[in-house]
C-alpha cells in the first residue's frame, strides 16, 4: 500500500531542498558564517598579520567545521517543533530512509556550497591556487563525514532540552580526526608536499560513516522520539 523506500527518499529529499530554498537564510547562514569567521581572523590578528599565511588551513577548516555544525542543529529540530517529525515518523517509512534523505539534503546545501565558496576565502587567506584541488577534495569529504556525524548527534538531542550543547559535545570529539587530517592535507598541499596519506584517511572516514551513521542516527531518533 505505501510507497517504496526509494521514492519515499526522493520525496523527502525534494521536500527538504524546497524548504531550504524557501528559507534562503538557512541556505546562506553557513556560508555567511564561513565568510565572516574567515574575515574576523585577520582582523583579530592585525598586530601579527604575517602569521596569517601559516594559519590559513587551520582557519579555513575551523570555519568550515563550525559553520557546518551550526546548521546541523536544526536537522531534526525544526520538524520536531512544528509536529511534522511525528507525521514523518508515522508515515509508514522506516526512520533510516528519513535520516538518509534529510542528511543528504543537508550536505547538498551546506557542504557543496561551502566547497564552491572556498576559493574566495582561500584567496583572501593567501592560499595558493595550486592547493585548491586538494582543498576541494578534503572539504567535500570532510563536510559529508561531518553531516553524518551530525545526524547522529542531532538525532540524539532532538527533543532534549539540553540539545545544542550536547550536540557540540557529541559531534566535535568525533570530528577531531577530521579536522586534523583535513587541515594537514591542505597544509601539505600548500607546502608542495604530497597530501595523499591525509586524503586517504579522510576518504576512509567518509566511507565508514556513510555506511554506519544512518543506522546509528535512526536508532538515536527512535530513542528520542518516544
Amino acid at each position, binding site marked *: 500500500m505505501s510507497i517504496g523506500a526509494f521514492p519515499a527518499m526522493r520525496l523527502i529529499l525534494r521536500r527538504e531542498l524546497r524548504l531550504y530554498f524557501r528559507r534562503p537564510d538557512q541556505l546562506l547562514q553557513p556560508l555567511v558564517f564561513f565568510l565572516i569567521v574567515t574575515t574576523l581572523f585577520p582582523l583579530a590578528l592585525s598586530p601579527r598579520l604575517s602569521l596569517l599565511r601559516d594559519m590559513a588551513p587551520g582557519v579555513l577548516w575551523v570555519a568550515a567545521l563550525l559553520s557546518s555544525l551550526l546548521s546541523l542543529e536544526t536537522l531534526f529540530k525544526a520538524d520536531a517543533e*512544528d509536529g*511534522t517529525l511525528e507525521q514523518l515518523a508515522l508515515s509508514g517509512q522506516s526512520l533510516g530512509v528519513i535520516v538518509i534523505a534529510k542528511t543528504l539534503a543537508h550536505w547538498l546545501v551546506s557542504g557543496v556550497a561551502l566547497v564552491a565558496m572556498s576559493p574566495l576565502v582561500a584567496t583572501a587567506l593567501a592560499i595558493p591556487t595550486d592547493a585548491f584541488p586538494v582543498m576541494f577534495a578534503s572539504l567535500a569529504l570532510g563536510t559529508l563525514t561531518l553531516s553524518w556525524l551530525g545526524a547522529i548527534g542531532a538525532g540524539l538531542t532532538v527533543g532534549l532540552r539540553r540539545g545544542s550543547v550536547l550536540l557540540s559535545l557529541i559531534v566535535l570529539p568525533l570530528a577531531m580526526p577530521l579536522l586534523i587530517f583535513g587541515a594537514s592535507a591542505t597544509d601539505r598541499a600548500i607546502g608542495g608536499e604530497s597530501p595523499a596519506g591525509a586524503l586517504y584517511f579522510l576518504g576512509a572516514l567518509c566511507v565508514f560513516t556513510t555506511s554506519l551513521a544512518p543506522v546509528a542516527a535512526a536508532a538515536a531518533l527512535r530513542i528520542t522520539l518516544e
Partner: protein
Amino acid sequence: MQEATDPIDAPRASSLDLSADKIHVWRGDRHVLRGAGFAVKAGELLHVAGPNGTGKTTLLRVVCGLLRPEQGAVSWCGRPIDAIRAEYQAAMAYASHEAALKSDLSALENLRYSVGLKRRVGDHELRDTLGRTGVAACADLPARVLSAGQRRRVAMARVLAMRAPLWLLDEPFTNLDSKGTALMCRMLEAHLDGGGLALVVAHHALALARPIRRLELGE
C-alpha cells in the same frame, strides 16, 4: 471529484479492528492513564471524552505508537502494533492538537510531502481535497499566513487524502466555524459508512446520526 467518499482498501475493510487493553502511563509523578482500554471495529467511532488533563491526548499518542505505555498493549487486527509497525502506520491517519504544517511550505506542498509518503497522489487530487474542506483558495499560500481555522482545515484535508481506514483525531473541531464543524461531522459519517474506524477526542457531543461509543476518562 470522482468519489464522494474515500474508498478504503477493500479486501481488509471488513475484518479491521483496533483494541487497547489495560493501558497504564505515568507522566512525571502522575499516573495519568490507569488501565484504560477499548475495542473498536470497522464502521465504529469511539468518542474519547473527559475533563482537561485526564489523558485523552496521552491515550491517542499511545494508540498511534508515538508513546510506549508502561503496561498494556494496543492491537490492530489482533496483532500488537509494535510487531506490524509499517503496516499499521500505513493504515492510520493521525491529526494532533497542532496542525503540524511547515509554515514555509504552501498548504498544497504540505499535503504533497506528507500524504505522498503514504500513497502515490497527484496535485490535482490534493487540490480537490483542499476544496472539499473549504480551503481551495489557500492552497498556494504559505501555511504561515493562514488563520487558525484554515490551518485546521488543511490538517483535515490531509487526513482525508491519506485514505486510511483508521482515523485518530485529537480535538478536530478546534478553531472551526459552524460550517466547518458540520463538514467534519459529514466527513466522519462518510468515513464510517465506508468501513473506516475513528477515535475522536472531543469535549462536546458529536452530532452524528448513528450510535457512538464513548470512553470517558478521569472519573
